[in-house]
Structure formats: structure tokens, C-alpha cells
């Protein structure tokens, strides 16, 4: 008997042997409108803090060279927290879930994006260079900033949970480059992790699964993620020892990603043959471990296929469903 996505997912979450390795496109009902209002506008424009975001093919980024302040000691002068009541979280949930019936919910988990985590938010205000220096130059001010920002994130996430009744919150915070952490693991643990932990606890204490999105080579802090109660690591990239992590944390952490985002299958206009080959590689190398969700990265002229759609997706899905059985 074929399991639903939800049933299969729950087996995987509990460390059992799922029937198949899921494909992110099929697994979740993904909701991303609320974070558009609370954190960063996906189509570009000003966020509720006044930072201007520019849309690029691979996502939005703060406008280059425009910062609100350059010294973290000054953050209270410039950061005005928006009134959470005014952000339209409930209306966004109504729009996104309008056609998502209770019957569908029984078959498919709901995952809600929460973009722009603590570190990324500081960088959105100050730029990366100032942010990275601040972490070691003025940790006291960073602590104050992260504590206040965590309060905001938690207030928003609680509203998300009330409005969407999600199974999963996907929290975005990119802490690493392709070659290693932006900051030392020690700095992360001392300056960011305490507040990150509060956010994780706020989510998991309400029975919601915490999915941490961190691109890049962040394997040095995966143990920290697991320790905090993070259950899924998203956009896990091949610059990390994914096979080792899948084995070591089986039953404790699900790896979501696996696609070679810098390889030929992710190049603009990659042929469908390259995509099929990469799909099969992921199934063979990671899928069979039983705690893996494939998150493909296909890029086209409009952007990331996950957001924009792509004519190569049907071939990818068909291939995956041929090779993902466990």
C-alpha cells in the first residue's frame, strides 16, 4: 500500500524506515506569504523595518551599499519594531490555505517559511562586513540586538502557528559560505546560538517541527542544531559531508537538499539529461539512507524553479518517483 506524504514523513521523523524518500516539491504544502510581510518581500521593495530588498534570479537581497547603520551599538536608534498586529499574517494564511481542505491536510504536511533569521537580519541592517566585525568587536551590543530580534521573531512565529496551524516552520538563516562558516563555531555559539535556541524552543514547545535553512558548509554546527531540537536541515549542500551526517544523525535529523547547487544540473538552462542524472545520484547517494528529502535547484530565466516553475520539473518528478523507493 502506498503511503501518503504525511504518513511517510511521520515514519521518517520518528526514525523508522519510510516507504520512499520524499521530494520537497511534493512533500509539503509550502506557505510563504506571511514572511513576505514580516521579514523580506519576495518580489523586492521595503520590508517593515525600512530595508530595501532587490529581487534577483536566486532570491531577494538587501540593496547593495544601502545600510541603516554601521555600528551595532547604535541599533536602538534605527530599529523600530513593527506592530505584529499590522502585518497581515492571518490574512496571508487565509489566502494561502483557501483551497487547502482538511482532507488535503491529512495527506500533506504544511510548512511555513520564516525568512531572514537573526544573523541575516543584522546583515540586512548593517551589511555583511560590519555585521561580521560586530560579532567579535562588540558582542554585548550583538547580544542585546539578537535578544530583541528573537522576541520579534517569536511573536511573528506564534502568530504563524495560530493562523496556519503548520506542521513545520522553515527558519532561514545563512551562516556559512561555500567553504565554511562565516564566523567561527565558537562565535556562533557565544553570540547567536542562545537566541537561536529560544526561537527553536518557541516553535518546538508548540509541537511544531523546526526546519533550519542554512546554505553553505555549516557542518561544524550541525551538532548544535541537533542539540537545540532542530529536526530538519534544509538546503543541505554537497560541500558538507552529507553521507556522514545522514548516517550519524539518523533518527535525529533529516537532511533536506542534496542537490549539487554549483554543478552542471544547476547551471542556467541545464539540459534535462543533466537533471535526471543528478536526481539519480541523489537517490543513490543519499535517498537510500532513509532520512533524506530531495530539494532540487533548477535555475531558469525567471529564477529558481521552486518559485517560478519549470518545464523540466515533470521529468525530474517522474525520475525521482522511479528511484526513490526504500
Amino acid at each position, binding site marked *: 500500500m502506498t503511503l501518503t506524504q504525511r504518513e511517510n514523513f511521520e515514519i521518517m521523523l520518528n526514525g523508522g524506515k519510510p516507504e520512499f524518500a520524499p521530494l520537497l516539491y511534493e512533500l509539503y504544502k509550502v506557505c510563504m506569504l506571511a514572511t513576505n510581510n514580516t521579514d523580506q518581500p519576495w518580489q523586492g521593495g521595503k520590508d517593515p523595518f525600512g530595508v530595501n530588498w*532587490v529581487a*534577483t*534570479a*536566486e532570491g531577494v*537581497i538587501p540593496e*547593495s*551599499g544601502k545600510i541603516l547603520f554601521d555600528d551595532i551599538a547604535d541599533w536602538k536608534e534605527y530599529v523600530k519594531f513593527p506592530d505584529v498586529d499590522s502585518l497581515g499574517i492571518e490574512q496571508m494564511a487565509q489566502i494561502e490555505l483557501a483551497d487547502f481542505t482538511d482532507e488535503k491536510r491529512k495527506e500533506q504536511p504544511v510548512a511555513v517559511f520564516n525568512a531572514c533569521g537573526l544573523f541575516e537580519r543584522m546583515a540586512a541592517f548593517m551589511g*555583511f*562586513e560590519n555585521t*561580521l*566585525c560586530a*560579532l*567579535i*568587536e562588540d558582542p554585548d551590543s550583538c547580544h542585546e540586538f539578537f535578544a530583541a530580534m528573537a522576541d520579534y521573531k517569536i511573536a511573528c512565529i506564534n502568530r504563524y502557528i495560530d493562523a496556519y496551524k503548520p506542521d513545520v516552520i522553515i527558519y532561514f538563516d545563512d551562516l556559512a*559560505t*561555500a*567553504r*565554511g*562558516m*562565516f*564566523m*567561527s563555531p565558537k*562565535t556562533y555559539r557565544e553570540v547567536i546560538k542562545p537566541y537561536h535556541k529560544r526561537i527553536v524552543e518557541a516553535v518546538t514547545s508548540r509541537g511544531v517541527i523546526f526546519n533550519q535553512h542554512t546554505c553553505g558548509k555549516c557542518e561544524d554546527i550541525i551538532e548544535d542544531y541537533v542539540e537545540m531540537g532542530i529536526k530538519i536541515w534544509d538546503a543541505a549542500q554537497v560541500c558538507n559531508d552529507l553521507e556522514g551526517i545522514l548516517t550519524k544523525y539518523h533518527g535525529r535529523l533529516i537532511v533536506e537538499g542534496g542537490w549539487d*547547487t*554549483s554543478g552542471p544540473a*544547476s*547551471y*542556467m538552462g541545464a539540459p534535462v539529461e543533466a537533471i535526471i542524472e543528478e536526481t539519480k545520484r541523489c537517490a543513490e547517494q543519499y535517498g537510500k539512507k532513509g532520512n533524506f528529502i530531495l530539494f532540487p535547484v533548477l*535555475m531558469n530565466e525567471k529564477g529558481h524553479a521552486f518559485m517560478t516553475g519549470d518545464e523540466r520539473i515533470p521529468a525530474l518528478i517522474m525520475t525521482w518517483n522511479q528511484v526513490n523507493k526504500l
Partner: protein
Amino acid sequence: MAKIEEVKAMVEAGKAKLVPGLVQEALDEGSAAKDILQAMVGSMGVVGDKFSTGEIFVPEMLMAAKAMAKGVDVLKPLMAGDTSNSLGTCIIGTVAGDLHDIGKNLVSMMIESAGFTMVDLGVDVAHEKWVEAIKENQNVTLVACSGLLTTTMPSLKEAVQTVKASGLTGFKVLVGGAPVTQQFADEINADGFAPDAGSAAVKASELVKSL
């Protein structure tokens, strides 16, 4: 410890507030400006190596680059017109379509620390703009193009080809960015590739010394 040694140590440690005073003290002690500069360039080499081996991370490297920049500010008036320590001018930017500047800014600081005069064209640099900048600036010895995204790899190729096809000479082209590899750099006919900011400074010096 001689003051010049203290300058080296404090640059390595990223003590931006202390370095200017120590540079002044080293000058007062009789050290030549160019020797102090060379000492700081050496420190940044050590910092770059430590970054490449994972001993330190981006913030520590940024702080060191900031400390050196503060020291250079003290030396600049004394070295006006002295080009004996300069490796020439480096034109840097991210290629057309790429708006991400973090890697580029860091590489810029590190290359500057190696002794180049930097001309930062910013982000999303049109292909022709690279050629114009080479023409507009004196003693351009290096063109450093960054492409952070897989979507802008074709643009990186086009930028390198445009610069190479311009007929202008006297410089080398260095490329880098998360998806860029040595193989890709070879494919697009770049003169050099660096996987990170520390290596970029070393590679930049190597390339220019081979001109």
C-alpha cells in the same frame, strides 16, 4: 619588541584602534614608511594563510584588513608619489547580473592589503564598463571579476572575454566566487582563480609579478 614588530602583531590580531598609534611610534622610532607598509603586507599574508587553513574566520580577517587600512592611512601622506611598493591598480567588481557584494568586498580588502590600489566598480558591472575602467585608470595590472551565483557564470565568461578581446594589455584577469572552480576559470580563459579572499591576495601578487 621593536615598534614595527608590534605593528605586525597588532595587524594580525585585528586591533584597528591600536595600529595607527603604533605606526606613528614606529615612524618616530626611525622606521621607514615603506618598511612599515611591507611589514603590514607580510602580516596580511599570514592572516590570509590562517584563513585558508581554517584557523581563523571571515570576521578575524576583516578586522585585520581594517587594522591595516588604518595603518596605511597614517603612511599615505608620507608615501605620496612613491610607487616602489605598489603592485599597481586592481579593478574589481561583480559581473553583470550579480548584485551580491560580500565576497567581492572581502577580496577587495585583501588584495588592497597586498599592495594594490583598488578601483571598486561595485556590483552588476556591465561588460563594457570593465574595459572603460582599464582605459580610465593608470597602471592597471589586475582585473578581478566576481560571480557568486551559478546564474551569473555565463556573465563571468562574457566579462572575461570582453576584457580579453579589447586589445588592451598589461594586466591579468583573476576570477572567483562560490560556484567558480579552477576548471571553469581555465574554460573561460581567465589568468587566475582563487577559492577564497586570502588566496586571492596571494594569487593577485603572483599574477602581477609574472607580468
